[in-house]
């Protein structure tokens, strides 16, 4: 679905159903250099169970008009603009990696329509080393390789995946190739610059859930537990066998956890 935000074209998939702002809505937020296709194994499930779904492409990513936004705060404001434009109510935010930083900002500042927020594979901050940012700008293939290598756990590295015949690893590479160099580098700089995680986490008062991965090399368990600590007793789950790409590497467990949480706190 294409729509206009601040004079620019924006894109979201709606899970195969026509978007209806009268329904409770699940908004999915992707990670650095990725796009809406990351959420395919969660989004359609909710769309066919009486929820509306918005799986966003951030500005500059895949189908949404650029340029990419330079800070986490700017992306959170843009998500709010989307919510305003489409007049979305009863929102459940579901976020992964960089999307979690966006969700922290959004949930701490725009509370009135928010029913729940789910953080997947993230800490309070995402420090990015200079070598990766430099690679994103000057050698995007190397940056993509580093991120996918760290991002996927053992199953991903063997091109396994929940959809018969599909290689998660190769699919991720194709998506990221469409979002380099500018989008990925901008995303990584935005992550690296974000410092407001602790304050934002403490300000969130809607039901919150954290899903971490036992084999996550991008957002290790220690970092995830810092998020848990500052969110004030969120619902916590750890999927031991998954790498960082939880919604793809452990889609059934992830979807079940999201289902139980969202059905409970934002019923359709």
């Amino acid at each position, binding site marked *: 679905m294409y729509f206009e935000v601040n004079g620019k074209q924006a894109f979201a*998939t709606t*899970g*195969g*159903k026509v978007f209806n702002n009268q329904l409770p809505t699940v908004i999915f937020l992707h990670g650095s250099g990725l*796009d*809406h*296709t990351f959420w*395919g*194994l969660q989004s*359609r*499930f909710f769309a*066919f169970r009486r929820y509306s779904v918005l799986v966003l492409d951030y500005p500059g990513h*895949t*189908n949404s008009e650029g340029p990419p936004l330079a800070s986490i705060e700017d992306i959170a404001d843009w998500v709010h603009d989307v919510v305003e434009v489409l007049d979305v109510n009863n929102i459940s935010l579901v976020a992964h990696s960089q999307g979690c930083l966006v969700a922290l900002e959004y949930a701490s500042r725009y509370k009135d329509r928010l029913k729940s927020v789910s953080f997947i594979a993230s800490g309070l901050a995402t420090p990015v080393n200079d070598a990766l940012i430099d690679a994103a700008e000057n050698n995007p293939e*190397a940056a993509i*390789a*580093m991120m*996918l*290598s760290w991002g996927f756990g053992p*199953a991903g*590295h*063997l*091109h*396994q*995946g*929940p*959809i*018969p*015949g*599909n*290689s998660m*690893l*190769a*699919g991720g590479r*194709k*998506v990221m*190739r469409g979002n380099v160099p500018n989008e990925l580098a901008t995303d990584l700089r935005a992550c690296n610059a974000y410092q407001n995680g602790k304050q934002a986490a403490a300000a969130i008062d809607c039901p919150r859930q954290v899903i971490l991965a036992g084999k996550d090399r991008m957002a290790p368990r220690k970092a995830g537990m810092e998020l848990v600590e500052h969110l004030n007793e969120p619902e916590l789950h750890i999927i031991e066998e998954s790498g960082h790409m939880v919604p793809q590497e452990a*889609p*059934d467990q992830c*979807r079940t956890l999201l289902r139980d949480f969202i059905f409970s706190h934002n019923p359709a």
Partner: protein
Amino acid sequence: MSDFFNFDTLSLHAGQTVDKEFGARATPIYQTTSYVFPDTDTASSIFNLERGGHAYSRITNPTVGVLEQRIAALEGGSAAVCTSSGMAATFCAITAILSQGDHIVASSQMYGGNISLMKNTLPRFGITATFVDPTDTDGFRNAIQDNTRLIYGELIGNPGLDILDLEAIAAIGAEHHVPFMVDATFNTPYLCRCFDYGANITIHSVTKWMGGHGTAVGGVVVDGGNFDWGATDKYPTITEPYAPFQGINLWEEFGPSAFATRIRAEAMRDFGPSMAPMNAFLLLQGIETLSLRMEKHRSNTEKMLEYLSNHDRVSWVSHPSMPSHSSHELAKKYLPKGAGSILSFGVKGGRDAGKAFIENVELASHLANVGDAKTLIIHPATTTHSRIDAEALVAAGITEDMIRLSVGLEDVRDIQADFETGFRAAKKVSGA
């Protein structure tokens, strides 16, 4: 630094999750038609493409799925769909994106079945083709029409062995928003990964070198995930709502695997050319040794080329690794590890001498296949390409005296000794 597995490791492990119940190291053969659903919600969500999973083996099967993910990994593709044969793969791939009134630009030098499909069969359904000399890259551009929806060719043409200029033809496709589909059977991903040079889809008859043992017929379509279907309105089967799945837009939902998903959702469901689990298992065993076999094929081919080139009963020899071959430079560029193990040659004395040669060799098998572990020979003009007309034979580079040799893995000294028997018989017939 990244730490991805390399080709040989992926050949052995990609796609397989070790069986959790019994710890079977080999991929189990899931010889089942169907799968017990734990509950109705799971069942409906699998049918509605909300989650992965298996419902019925015509659509997906766990053993076949391992093979699909292994081939996708080796090719660098985003997804793969296995089929009952290479021709089924070609048909499913074409019909996933072409409909009545659409047009293909295809190489004239292809397996006879491919040519017949595009020249005789698809026109009955309103899909036409223009055939182009594979060495005439500009010819591909000139043949593109407003209704062209596909460029198709074999990287190593069968049986003339001309090489497609992948990068140049891919650029033509990109310029016109037309995907470039390559039959990569003769090269396998070990010799060339066509996606690295801009191809968008590959097809394999995995019956051949991928399986490598002549025990199972099968095919595969690999989605390169690198074609922007949404950049044009030419491909409504990918970018418009698909009614059988509640109006799903495959491009929006599946992005880099949208094309493969269309094949899965339509061709496998409606046409049903599924691969048998047992065949998938046999083909997996072959792929485990793909690089080892391809290296031996290459070294034996080099020795046979030298032998035949110096033989007084041979009138000509052709292989892209030979400087005299018109595609030699392209072979060096795209196939640096070897230009395949098919070669062709002529026996002095013409058609009758060729017939005598084929009927008197014993180790080399006279049959209609290539890419077996065993050495194979055939006379294309009267067999594999017998259903195409004289004009198309010329276009395909086939002469009356041509013998196609698929070099096997035997001790090359034994192959050569066998050929000596054949040449003696040919000499008697020709009388020279």
